[in-house]
């Protein structure tokens, strides 16, 4: 069968990394081709090259067997290649149709031809079996529906090859199945799909062909029938697959964090955290599950002190910190791994040793009287580099030169090595490779063994179940279930998160 897309010998270098090193990828017409690999393996870069967002340093791109040069996404769209980004690019205050036609509006005498647009939109959505209502406001849509709008947007522009960048990352299990049905319909209608994923069971379920990338190189192209999830994982990591098993319980009776009837309002005075109470003990990991946007972020902000609650109390080892400043909480032993490390966790243009000090700069080894201790900061950073396996040429490089996984290891290292009493970890393994993920899990587990109280917020259900001693489910700002991770599956958890199942304790 003819190849819809062929990438030959693609090489792309960035400051500090080789993202792609002689990568080869061939996608046949009408197939679903999965690209798997650890984060940082170079999948996203490869897709950006294919979509014309970045030029390769070396290598050739063939579309329908003829060589092409892509200098912008416009070129790619022209050739029938469309991309659905991991983070949706939709205007919330516009309707589905307005979003779809945005940028390629059909015009008639200088006015947008809405009738033609609607007709084309309906044709596209029927041809590929994607149901949406053109006049719905995007802000009223669920995540899965938004994704469908993104896919239609791409098809509307005549795409025959779809690139889906980690499409399942934002979906709960039920929505994933709906997405896979859509993908099968698309394939039946003749489209080729390249999708990026690192959830192996999903890949095995939906893909016709799987290409595995490791450290910027293609290591194998296999058929799903010939491999097991375990084989794939080994190909991805190059060694054995890690799993987030917490091991023996180390939970004590010593309450570290107590949240009591906490309510947080947003700017519109809605309760985004609604009468939430729970405790985290020394040596315990409490996991919080929930579809994003159900109050987890606001809960974290209230605990770390960047947001102030409307009512209720937060206490750390018996001391009321409800209204203490972030700095005071930090000094009282609060450590925090933010959900967005670029936005909240790092000084990207500053050297690593200045990053290590962030949040701990009021205490030794980072401070000497009124002076900043540059020697102490460098020594501590060297130590973190060794202990947490942060891969960097030296500690003078700016933080942006590190890969995501190494940035995360640095953040985790600086927080854990500050000997905290309470550890708030928000999505600690989001967007990092399997190797770094295993290291992060190991570090969290060790800290728990040493008696650290940990609050873990994650969208990775396996991670939550594997690491936590207790899992709380948040839905619309409330804790709707308190579950024992030993007795639940990710599927069960998904049901609680979407409100399909109701906890006995909550009812």
């Amino acid at each position: 069968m003819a190849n819809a897309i062929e990438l030959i010998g693609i090489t792309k270098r960035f400051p500090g990394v080789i993202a792609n090193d002689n990568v080869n990828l061939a996608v046949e017409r009408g197939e679903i081709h999965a690209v798997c690999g650890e984060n940082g393996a170079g999948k996203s870069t490869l897709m950006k090259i294919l979509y014309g967002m970045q030029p390769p340093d070396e290598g050739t791109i063939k579309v329908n067997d003829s060589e092409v040069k892509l200098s912008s996404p416009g070129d790619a769209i022209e050739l029938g290649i469309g991309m659905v980004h991991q983070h949706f690019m939709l205007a919330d205050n516009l309707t589905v149709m307005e979003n779809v036609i945005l940028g390629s509006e059909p015009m008639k005498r200088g006015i947008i031809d809405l009738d033609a647009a609607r007709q084309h939109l309906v044709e596209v959505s029927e041809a590929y079996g994607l149901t949406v209502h053109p006049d719905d406001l995007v802000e009223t849509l669920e995540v899965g529906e938004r994704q469908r709008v993104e896919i239609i947007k791409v098809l509307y522009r005549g795409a025959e090859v779809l690139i889906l960048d980690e499409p399942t990352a934002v979906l709960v299990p039920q929505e994933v199945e709906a997405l896979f049905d859509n993908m099968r319909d698309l394939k039946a209608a003749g489209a080729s799909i390249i999708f990026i994923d690192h959830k192996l069971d999903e890949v095995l379920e939906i893909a016709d062909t799987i290409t595995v990338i490791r450290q910027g190189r293609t290591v194998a192209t296999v058929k799903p029938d010939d491999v097991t999830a375990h084989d794939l994982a080994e190909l991805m990591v190059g060694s054995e697959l890690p799993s987030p098993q917490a091991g023996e319980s180390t939970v004590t009776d010593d309450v570290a964090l107590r949240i009591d009837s906490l309510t947080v309002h947003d700017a519109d005075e809605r309760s985004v955290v609604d009468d939430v109470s729970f405790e985290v003990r020394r040596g315990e990991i409490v996991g919080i599950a929930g579809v994003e946007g159900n109050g987890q972020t606001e809960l974290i902000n209230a605990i770390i002190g960047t947001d102030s609650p409307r009512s209720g109390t937060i206490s750390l080892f018996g001391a009321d910190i409800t209204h203490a400043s972030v700095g005071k909480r930090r000094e009282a032993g609060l450590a925090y791994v933010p959900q967005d490390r670029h936005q909240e966790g790092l000084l990207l243009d500053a050297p690593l040793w200045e990053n290590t000090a962030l949040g701990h700069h009021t205490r030794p080894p980072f401070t000497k009287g009124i002076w900043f201790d540059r020697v102490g900061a460098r020594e501590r950073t060297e130590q973190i580099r060794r202990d947490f396996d942060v891969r960097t040429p030296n500690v003078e490089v700016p933080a942006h030169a590190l890969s995501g996984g190494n940035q995360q290891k640095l953040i985790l290292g600086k927080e854990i090595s500050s000997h905290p009493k309470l550890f708030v970890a928000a999505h600690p393994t989001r967007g990092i490779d399997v190797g770094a993920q295993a290291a992060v899990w190991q570090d969290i587990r060790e800290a728990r063994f040493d008696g650290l109280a940990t609050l873990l917020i994650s969208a990775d259900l396996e991670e939550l179940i594997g690491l936590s001693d207790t899992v709380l489910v948040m839905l619309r700002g409330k804790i709707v279930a308190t579950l024992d991770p030993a007795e639940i599956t990710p599927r069960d958890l998904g049901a609680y998160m979407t409100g399909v199942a109701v906890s006995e304790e909550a009812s």
Partner: protein
Amino acid sequence: MTAPSLRRIGLAVAAPALAAGVALIISSIVLIISGSNPIDAYSDMFNNAKKLETSVDILNRATPLYISGVAAAIGFRMNLFNIGVEGQYLLAAFFASVAGGAVDLPPVFHVALVLFVAMTVGAAWGGFAGVLKVTRGVNEVISTIMLNFIAVGGIIAWLIVVWQDDTGQVNSGTTPIPESGRMPNLNSWVEVFTREISKGRELTGVLLIAIAVGILYHLFINRSRIGYEFRASGYNPFASQAAGIDSKKMVLTAMLLSGAVAGLVGMVEVLSENFRFDQSFVKGMGFQGIAVALLGRNKPVGIALAALLFGFLNASAGALQVGGTASREIVVIMQATILLAAVIAYEVVNRLRQKDEARTAAALLAESAS
């Protein structure tokens, strides 16, 4: 020394060299268009600069530019665009002159009082913009521009008439500061190494204050704990907030400090040259300071080099006029082209450096893989 580190130094020197080259070419074109011979003009400028008196002149002109550059840089390091150095220094110089002219104190105390008043007024005027920003979210660019107008067109224009010295001069101004409140010149220090400075030129003692400001700026920004919080806030305000750094406090501190330093900009005029604030008091130093800070990349030594360059160009304007080789306005064109060329050159060199880093890292990875 290894080849890569030589290359790094080369890149660091490349940017200003490139900028200077481009600026020279553009200025030459402008000179030719305006009917002057660029080579004559440049040689006039350099021959003039070789004179001892001109060197003193350059230092006198560079001193306020340096202080102004540091004042702007303090804001820049925190991503605050303090356009208000202009209004802060003029208002500070005005009140400092009034205070200095109103009292009679022993020499050192008298100068100290003038400096104290200048820094306090500058800090207050800068802090005003800071308070507006942290309590009301008013952008500092808008507020400082408006405060400039209020300071110059409002407060000074009004009070200079109310408080003017009643000597009946046409150029109304404040009461001159008596001898005890003046800064001694540094001529005797220079003359240890050179011949006598003639033509009544005096090297300003405020130069020492400028040097102290530079050293303190370096210690504060690069070595102190609060300086770290400062830079962290500038790099990433969100991360800093999550790390317990109070961004509002940082903004306020930055504006207060920037204003306090800005208050010293007018001191050459007040303590060494004019000894009073009158209608012809030197204006525009605040805006030139922004250019100097940009050119010097907000670094203590970089700002000094930029201030000397601008001081040299300002000092050359007169020589060109007198020599008749070109009009004095060419100097302003040169300053502008240097700045523009520098901004572009820094960006070009920055990209080259990133490519370099990528290559080095790639080589490192390849080495560790084999």
